């Protein structure tokens, strides 16, 4: 049996406000899924729910890894079980060097039973591997000595996320707009690297608005999210339709979800203008 990440009837709320309402999605290891949808439709919320963001409240449904619910698992446990997420907006950790952070993370993920304070993987071995991975991503060695995401450009942050994925070798990875902020060549390289790292090994969920990241990661399935639900699932041709023609046709095909979407985003606009 191949390993599976299975999301069933997932309902998620933030501060009492429902965001996702009944998401179903099953990813097997080795598959590439694309997740598309207009801004504010709930894509990042789904990613966050998979990783166990503390602010997200699961009101209904399940997330299972190989048949076991992970809802009660701490974020750290999920990471150690092989779940990864490349953040849309990675956090800066000033004063902590990329290399130190990654050595710690890599050790924990590769040796999930490691206790706090126990040994890290040997420096030499780790450095060698990190250097190789960085070369593959055409990152300067200097990068390892910089503080995590501190003062990184948008592009550097996204490449750092891919580097982390490469080191952690997850079973399942959610890439949340990993192409945004990258220029054309960088996206190409990213796309290639993800394919090389992932290959047949990972189950990948790629959240994107464009086609470039998919170039070397041709999706087996494309999902469209609208108003907090996955409203359509198709093959690579659906992705093509969406990035060439936008979401209006999808909205037309799903008027009820489009209405919910409108409501969600209008609340957001009101909040935004109220705060201004």
């Amino acid at each position: 049996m191949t390993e599976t990440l299975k999301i069933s009837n997932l309902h998620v709320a933030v501060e009492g406000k429902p965001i996702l309402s009944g998401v179903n999605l099953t990813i097997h290891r080795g598959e590439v899924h694309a997740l598309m949808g207009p801004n504010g439709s709930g894509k990042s919320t789904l990613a966050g729910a998979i990783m166990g963001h503390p602010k997200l409240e699961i009101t209904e449904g399940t997330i299972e890894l190989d048949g076991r619910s992970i809802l009660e698992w701490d974020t750290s446990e999920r990471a150690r079980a092989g779940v990864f997420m490349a953040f849309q907006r990675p956090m800066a950790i000033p004063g902590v060097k990329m290399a130190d952070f990654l050595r710690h993370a890599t050790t924990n993920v590769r040796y999930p039973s490691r206790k706090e304070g126990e040994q890290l993987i040997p420096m030499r071995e780790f450095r060698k591997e990190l250097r190789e991975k960085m070369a593959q991503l055409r990152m300067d060695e200097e990068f390892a000595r910089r503080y995590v995401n501190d003062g990184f450009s948008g592009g550097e942050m996204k490449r750092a996320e891919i580097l982390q994925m490469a080191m952690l070798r997850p079973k399942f990875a959610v890439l949340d707009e990993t192409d945004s902020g990258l220029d054309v060549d960088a996206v190409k390289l990213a796309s290639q690297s993800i394919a090389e790292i992932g290959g047949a090994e990972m189950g990948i969920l790629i959240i994107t608005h464009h086609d470039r990241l998919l170039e070397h990661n041709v999706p087996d399935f494309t999902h469209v999210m609208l108003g907090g639900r996955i409203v359509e699932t198709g093959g690579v041709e659906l992705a093509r339709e969406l990035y060439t023609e936008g979401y209006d046709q999808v909205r037309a095909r799903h008027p009820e979800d489009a209405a919910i979407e409108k409501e969600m985003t209008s609340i957001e606009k009101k909040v935004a203008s109220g705060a201004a």
Partner: protein
Amino acid sequence: MATDLQTMPLDSQDVLGEINKYNFVTETHGIFKARKGLNEHIVSEISEMKREPAWMRDFRLNALKVFESKPMPRWGGAINIDFQDIYYYLKPTTHQGKTWDDVPQEIKETFDKLGIPEAEKKFLAGVKAQFESEVVYGSLSEDLAKKGVIFTDTDTAVREHGDLVREYIGTIIPPEDNKFAALNSAVWSGGSFIYVPKGVKIEFPLQAYFRINAERMGQFERTFIIVDEGAEVHYVEGCTAPMYSSESLHSAVVEIIVRRGARCRYTTIQNWANNIYNLVTKRAVAYGDSLMEWIDGNLGSRLTMKYPAVYMMEPGARGEILSIAFASKGQHQDAGAKVVHCAPHTKSRIISKSISKNGGRSSYRGLCKVQDGAVGSKSSVVCDALILDPRSRSDTYPYIEVEEQDVQVEHEASVSRIGEEQLFYLKSRGLTEAEASSMIVSGFIEPLVKELPMEYAVEMNRLIELQMEGSVG
């Protein structure tokens, strides 16, 4: 003779972060213990015990009067000390060792546990180890001794370099400065006396280690450093004590003179038990084109009040003060810095980082003063506070007095809380909550820690980790 090192069991309620390595009591047989309490008789007795000249006894007695006339400091934290319930002088051994084998076994084992002899072998140019009131071990590399470097305990200095001590003691910090400087002047014992002759650059640090062992003990070391023209020295002090249920008092005075073109770096890494009142006065005067640096790591203690100062006396003098304070449960770190620009074109920099956790409280209290006529002087103050939980607290009290127009004075302060998003990010990479907050904290102090020599950076990081380990609950 009993020579057992007893390790006190840690109370399971103890989440104070003061962990095993420092928390043991050495059973000793002090050869002289002054009676508890403080009066003229006890002060004279201490002076007699030390066979001091009359001028020193008079210095002490005068200081006692000043102490009695001074009010408690009105700033800082609550000080609940019964001055009559403290031992002011405890002599642990008959003589000072020149090799560790000369040191009584049980005391040697104490310092072994604290890793001092090992560090000495590896990277120190000289060591003083003070146990209770007296320095029990002292060494200085032969090479430095030949060059005329003096590194001795202050009691020996009174005997062997009496004129120097008499000329300078109390000139930088007179007993009248504050109540605790007066107290130290009255009952001081031990501490380091250092003289670095003109042009002598000491490559490796000189280290002193201060250990309080007995309960209700007061430790009052007196340190004096003179760095002559063009000379350089790095002096490091470490301090620890075991945990008792009653309070002890550590009240040191450190006076430093940095002559023209000289450099002095004074690093403190203190990790006091949580029942220690740590009320210390440290001040340096820096002359033309010299550099005085204070690096101050304040961990532990019930209350620390400490504001290392640099008075820049002549053009081109510089003062730098880097301080880290970590306040955990039941602790108040009222720490900071003072820079006083008395001459034109002097330059100072203060960087202060504080961490408050588990209900701890840290305050930055700093003075930047630019005197009339100190044209072209520059001062920059940056203080950052990191608060780990809602029960903890941080305050900033900057005092800025500028009497001159043509100067540049900058002050920046920031307070941040460990963010949920930062923790989530690190946890999503497999770090536990505790590892994640530890990492954020070590990143927070990194800009300071990287200024330390390797060995001390490692030690500082380790101490911070110990403090973080106690953070559950």
